[in-house]
């Protein structure tokens, strides 16, 4: 791969990582980063670099996530965990309104949380945030809560070194290289000898942040070191999606018997929609207190896998599992393009890893492509 000259802001020694976190805390941010918890990697609020999963790796397969204890000092030596930064910009439960029965007076609930700092976002996370930006801020009706949190947040991305076997951002997304959408991007190099982070900035906000840090200069060799990380990550991912127009493929497959064969395995547990960093469906719940004088409107995550997702008086539109699975996958990879001008999938692989029965959308898409090819071949044969 051709070497592209980078402009690094500098390099940060690995043992100085806390200075970055301290700078964020000093500026009043809540720092969200990957942590090791409950035998997995998830996101949580941290205050020091000691909370990061240093030395831990992951092995991911369809339906399986296992932590591996490498025992080294690498801070970000894993792919992505169960949750995504989505839950901070678009919380799973959020109160919208307080309403009083008297006069039906309504009080909007304001967001009082501190601005967010996302540390350790991967290229697929950046991709997902850009996709959700389009959903929540890119139409006639901007979601003011999302817009506020999004505009206030700062993103410190990390270039992946160890994609998992369920990652396919080279196919579906724009990764694994962090190219845009970050304020600061880090590449972790020299773990064994000269452990440091190569620092790039992507915005004024990012430049302002790193100006507070004690960065050393980088050398030409650092360009190559960064490139090597990215090349290795690319090489670690095999092409997994069929080489075809996937949006058109799925639109043509609405009556395919393959949906039923997937539905026979699918539990409708909604894990895929919960772990997916771009799924945006929500529902509104109204609750009152016991004496009925006060009510609240809450917004919660919804999933198209529930029976009531498509309910209208008399029944639901998608009454069988096959139609609900078809909705999810076809929306994600096909209808989303018509709606938002981009695919809804980043190739992060979470839906594959966290599906309890191991349904792998890459395999299923290859299956649909195979069916289509077979159908065309048969047509030609009988023509």
């Amino acid at each position: 791969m051709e070497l592209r000259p980078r402009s690094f802001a500098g390099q940060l020694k690995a043992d100085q990582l806390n200075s970055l976190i301290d700078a964020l805390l000093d500026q009043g941010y809540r720092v969200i980063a990957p942590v090791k918890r409950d035998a997995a990697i998830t996101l949580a609020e941290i205050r020091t670099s000691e909370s990061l999963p240093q030395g831990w790796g992951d092995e991911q397969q369809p339906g399986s996530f296992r932590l591996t204890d490498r025992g080294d000092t690498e801070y970000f030596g894993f792919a992505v965990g169960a949750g995504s930064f989505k839950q901070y910009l678009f919380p799973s439960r959020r109160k919208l309104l307080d309403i009083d029965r008297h006069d039906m007076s309504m009080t909007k609930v304001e967001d009082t949380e501190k601005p967010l700092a996302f540390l350790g976002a991967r290229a697929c996370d950046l991709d997902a945030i850009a996709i959700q930006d389009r959903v929540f801020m890119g139409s006639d009706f901007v979601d003011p809560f999302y817009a506020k949190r999004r505009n206030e947040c700062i993103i410190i991305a990390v270039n992946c070194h160890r994609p998992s076997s369920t990652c396919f951002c080279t196919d579906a997304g724009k990764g694994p290289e962090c190219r845009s959408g970050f304020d600061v991007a880090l590449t972790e190099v020299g773990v064994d000898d000269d452990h440091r982070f190569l620092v790039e900035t992507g915005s004024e906000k990012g430049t302002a942040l790193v100006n507070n840090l004690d960065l050393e200069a980088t050398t030409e060799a650092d360009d190559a070191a960064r490139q090597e990380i990215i090349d290795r990550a690319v090489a670690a991912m095999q092409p997994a999606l069929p080489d075809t127009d996937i949006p058109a493929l799925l639109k043509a497959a609405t009556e395919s018997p393959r949906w039923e064969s997937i539905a026979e395995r699918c539990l409708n547990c909604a894990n895929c929609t919960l772990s997916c960093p771009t799924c945006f469906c929500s529902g509104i719940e109204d609750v009152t207190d016991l004496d009925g004088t006060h009510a609240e409107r809450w917004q919660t995550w919804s999933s198209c896998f529930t029976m009531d997702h498509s309910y209208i008086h008399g029944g639901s539109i998608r009454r069988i599992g096959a139609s609900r699975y078809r909705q999810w996958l076809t929306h994600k990879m096909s209808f989303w393009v018509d709606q938002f001008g981009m695919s809804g999938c980043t190739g992060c692989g979470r839906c594959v890893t966290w599906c309890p029965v191991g349904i792998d959308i890459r395999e299923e898409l290859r299956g649909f492509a195979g069916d289509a090819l077979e159908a065309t071949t048969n047509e030609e044969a009988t023509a």
Partner: protein
Amino acid sequence: MKNKPLSDLMVVHPFFEGMDRDHVDFIAGCAQNKRYKAGEFMMLMGKEADEFYLIRSGRVAVEMDAGNRTYVVQTVGEGGIIGWSWLNPPLSVRYDVRVMDDVSVFAFNAQCVRDKCDADPDFGFNITRRFMKLVVERLMATRLQLAELYA
């Protein structure tokens, strides 16, 4: 006479009771023996289909997909007919026909039967009259269902 065996089977089907053996042989030329498994759809609403069926064994449900509900309009079993609009093309299927219990049917190519009706009006009238009887029975049944007698 390769259709004779099929014609032998057809002659004992209630639809052909009392029909001239010649006419049964005539129409057997348009027929095939087919089987469908439970859960399969024999016909789908909106699709082009130029076949109609006589059920030899098993049971099907005639359904309408109404957006957020599936209405089972009627179940049809042994001796019943599925598909009446073949007589007057162009036809697109009005209902979904879902197999409830594995069925074995005589499947008739409608164009073939229409051609035979045109070629032999006597045969054509006989077939049409038999169909009319079934259609009228079905209509009466539907009206009774509509009257919500048990409400």
